[in-house]
Structure formats: C-alpha cells, structure tokens
C-alpha cells in the first residue's frame, strides 16, 4: 500500500471543503495512480463531483468556497501554487453535458493550444487531427471540421470535448459523469475510448452508474456524505467490500 503511494500522481491528504458555513468534504485522503482509471461513486450529493473539481481548482469559481488540506499533483501542492493556468493545462476536464463553444469543430479543439500562444497553422492542424483521432471521432468529423460543433450529436460532441481536453496534452483528465446525458450506444463508445486512453493518461471519473465503474475503472472510491468510505481495486469494491455501507450501495440497496 505504502509503496503504491510513492507512485501515485495525485495525492490528497485531509481535504476539507466548505461552502460558506456548510462543510461538503470531510478529511478526504486519496492517492491516485498514474495511467489508471479511478472511479468515484456514491449517491448524489455525496461530494464526489465537488471532490473532482478540487483537483483542477474549478471550485475557485464559486464564491465562498474554502478549502483546507493538501492536494499534491505531480509533486506540486496545487493550493499553495498560484499558477492555476499551469494546473489546468496539466489537468484537463470533461463535463457532465457536452459544452462545446459555438464555433467550428476545428476552432473548438484548437482553442486551448491557441490560448497557450500556438499560432502556427501546421502545428495546430497536427494537434487538432491527433486529438480528434485519440478521441476516436476523426473519421466522423474530418470532412466538416469548419462547420459548427453544435451541429453534432450529443455523443459526438462529448467526444470532441474529450479531444479538446486532449489537445492540451494533459497528464490527467477529470471526467464528471461524462455519459449521463448520452444514449447507451454513445455511452458505450465513450467507455471504450476511456479504456483506450488510460495507456496515455491518468483518468479520474465520477459516475453514478455502478456498472460503468465496474466496466472501466481500475480503482474505485466510494463517497458518502462527503467522506470516502472505501477505496480499493474496483474488483474488490464490487466483490468483497469491507464496509457494510459500500456493500449496501453496490448491491443497490440505496442510492
């Protein structure tokens, strides 16, 4: 256990989060391994999404949020550094609903690199193509790169969102229930994609779908009321959970 912690890319120690007076996360400890898929499960309102958003400091956008504890990503304590830009270029995010901008597909994927100052057209072309290929959507969109991204189907849009995150060449990609707004076939495609992506990226995914967690993740953390109840290999969580509450949840007794 201890040795694994050494290899972990994300190390969270005693993390507490408050919305004003209300505490939403209680002493969360978690070590996430490199190039694995880690799933965060739990009933709605348990704090799993809030926790995910502490990893790229998206909670900073909300007024009145206070955070104590340490989040160390790649040896850097992200709440002590003030370089949020650098953090977010290293830690990408895919949201619950596809949130492409009202621009062309190409401009969406090139958006992040451009904002980093990459202007060379050839370089951008390569980044866009590579990213769309990695997100398994290149073949579907290569002939319409200059058309509005909002004309794509929901599932396609979400894969372009993943491509947009990949275009930043991040180490880590956070996914906040990325398939909850999609039909089963699109969901399946994204799950396949995630499985393929883990050779290159560390993925942390929030899901309310336990089958999905079981299918695609290596490790699973079970959140309840702002605390981690259990964190282990996914197989163990689903076959031999140590905590009664975990067992109740994964067998569908509540949630």
């Amino acid at each position, binding site marked *: 256990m201890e040795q694994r912690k050494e290899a972990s890319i994300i*190390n969270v*120690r005693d993390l507490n989060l408050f919305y004003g007076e209300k505490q939403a996360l209680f002493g969360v400890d978690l070590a996430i391994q490199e190039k694995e898929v880690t799933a965060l499960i739990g009933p709605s309102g348990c704090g799993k999404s809030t926790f995910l958003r502490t990893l790229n400091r998206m909670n900073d956008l909300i007024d009145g949020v206070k955070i104590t504890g*340490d989040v*160390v990503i790649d*040896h*850097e*304590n992200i709440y*002590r*550094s*003030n*370089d949020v*830009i*650098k953090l977010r270029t290293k830690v990408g995010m895919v949201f619950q609903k596809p949130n492409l901008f009202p621009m062309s597909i190409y401009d969406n994927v090139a958006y992040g690199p451009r904002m*980093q*100052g990459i202007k060379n057209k050839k370089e951008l072309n390569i980044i866009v193509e590579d990213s769309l290929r990695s997100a398994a959507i290149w073949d579907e969109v290569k002939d319409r790169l200059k058309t509005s991204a909002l004309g794509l189907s929901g599932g396609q849009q979400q894969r372009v969102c993943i491509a947009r995150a990949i275009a930043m060449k991040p180490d880590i990609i956070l996914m906040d229930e990325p398939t909850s707004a999609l039909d089963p076939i699109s969901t399946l495609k994204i799950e396949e994609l995630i499985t393929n992506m883990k050779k290159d990226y560390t993925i942390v995914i929030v899901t309310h779908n336990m089958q999905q967690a079981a299918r695609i993740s290596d490790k699973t953390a079970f959140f309840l009321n702002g605390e981690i109840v259990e964190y282990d290999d996914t197989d163990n969580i689903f076959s031999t959970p140590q905590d009664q509450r975990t067992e109740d949840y994964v067998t569908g007794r509540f949630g």
Partner: protein
Amino acid sequence: MSIPTTNKQAEEIGKANKRKYMLERASQRVFLLCALLSVITLLLIIGFVFYKGAHPFVAEGYSFIDFIFGSDWVPSEDKFGIFPMIVASIYATIGALIIGVPIGLFTAIFLAEIASERLAKIISPAVQLLAGIPSVLYGVFGLAIIVPFLQDTFGLVKGQSLIAVILVLAIMMLPTIVTVAETAIRAVPQTYREGSLALGVSQIGTIFKVIVPAAKSGIMTAIVLGLGRAIGETMAVILVAGNSLIVPTSLTDSVRPLTTNIALEMGYAFGTHQEMLFATGIVLFSFILILNFVLAKISAKGGS
C-alpha cells in the same frame, strides 16, 4: 506533516503565465473603474444639482418654505415661489395616471388574453414602435389636434391647459404601459388559466381574479415606467401647457409644471435665478423619488 513537495513548488510561475496574470489583474481594475463610473456620475449629478440648487437657501438667505409655498415667480423682482408649478405637476401626473393606467392595462389585457393571435401580432409590435417615438412628436400632435379640439369644444380662449397636458401625457405613457404589462400578463403560466377555467370561473373572472394578480409586479413596473416617462417629460408639455404661473383651479387652466419651468428659463437665467431653476430640479427629483417609493409600497402591500 504535510506531504513533502519538491522545490518545484517554489518555482516561479512560467514567464508567459506571469504576463497573463498581470493582464488579468490590470483588466479587472479597468472593468471596475468602468463600473464605478456610473457611481461617480450619479454623485456628480447629485452633487452639482444640489450644490447649485441649495446655494440660495444656504448662502443667500432665501427661505426654502417661501420657495415651496410661495405662489409668485417673478425672477426680475427676486420672487421665487414654485407652489403653482408643484400643484400643476402633481395634478398633471395624477390625471395622466387616472386616464393612462386603466386604458393601458385594459389594452394589455385585450392583447394578451382576448384578441386573436393574429390581431395581437399586428397591434403589439405597432404599439411597441410607438413607445420609441420621440416625445416631442406627441407634443406636436397635442398642439395641432388636442388643443384646438378643447378650444372649440369648451369655448376656451386658449386650449393650452392642464387637461391638454394630462391627455398628452396619458397618450404618451400608453405604449410603455401596454407593452410592459402585456409581457407581464403573457408570462403568467398557462396552468393558472386552466386551473381557474376548470373551476367554472368565466374568462373575465379568471383574468381579474387570477391572471392580473399573478402579473402584479410586472404591471407595477409598467406603471412606474410609464409614470417615469410622463413626469419627466418636458418639451412636449411646454407645447400644450400654456405655461401660466397660476395655481390651477380647473382642468382648463393654463399651467406650468416643474419641468417646463426649467427648460423655458434655463436659456437666459443666471445668478440666483439659475440656482432657483436647479432648486426646481431638486424638487422634481424628490417628487420622483417619493412617487417611486409610494408605488413600491403600494405594490408591496398588495402582495401581502
């Protein structure tokens, strides 16, 4: 205690990012400055108008009571009483409200609830357009049509009168009231209508018992906006008011409301005379604040 981190922690922020953060801070200050500009101008306006307007009473020994309640305004003889104008402004505003509000509200009800979709689609945009017509034109209309009409009908020597002001202001506020109130009434959820109609309440009953109360705050806004347009109106009023300096005792008396007094004399006034026009402005300003306050109170009371 905390997890050991490498020296990278202290490593300076990348050069490119440093510039971005600097730009970020600078731009935020510029934005703040722009936002503060409206506060600054408001303070400037209040400051200048009040400084100028209060000067005669604070530094020159004029009595504020005489100013408010005096009925003689003869700048050449150093007499500054605006009581007739205050009365004229109050009468004109109340009169315009009495005529304009019910007609405007009923028209809004007609467009939103009774008229066919097709008819409403023709009338509503036309009314909306009229809300944007320069108010001077309402005055021109008043002078050319309403004033001669009053003259002939009531055998007046001069058709320019309080009633002419009231009619012009009522007409002028109509488009604003109709447009805003119609939007408010249309925003009432369909379920309210269905719920009431299903209980066997008639269409008219539903409108006045359910829909109008539900749209109350929007209707109040409509009235406040219409009122704002009427009470501050100047140039159109000059054309039809007659501008006599008497306390009106009848609807057919020629009047001079507060706004017109300022516009008529500002061009040549100087010294104390000019300051008294600013004082007139302060009274007008307070008048509007009080009216808005009263209306806010009325709508709050209606809510409880």
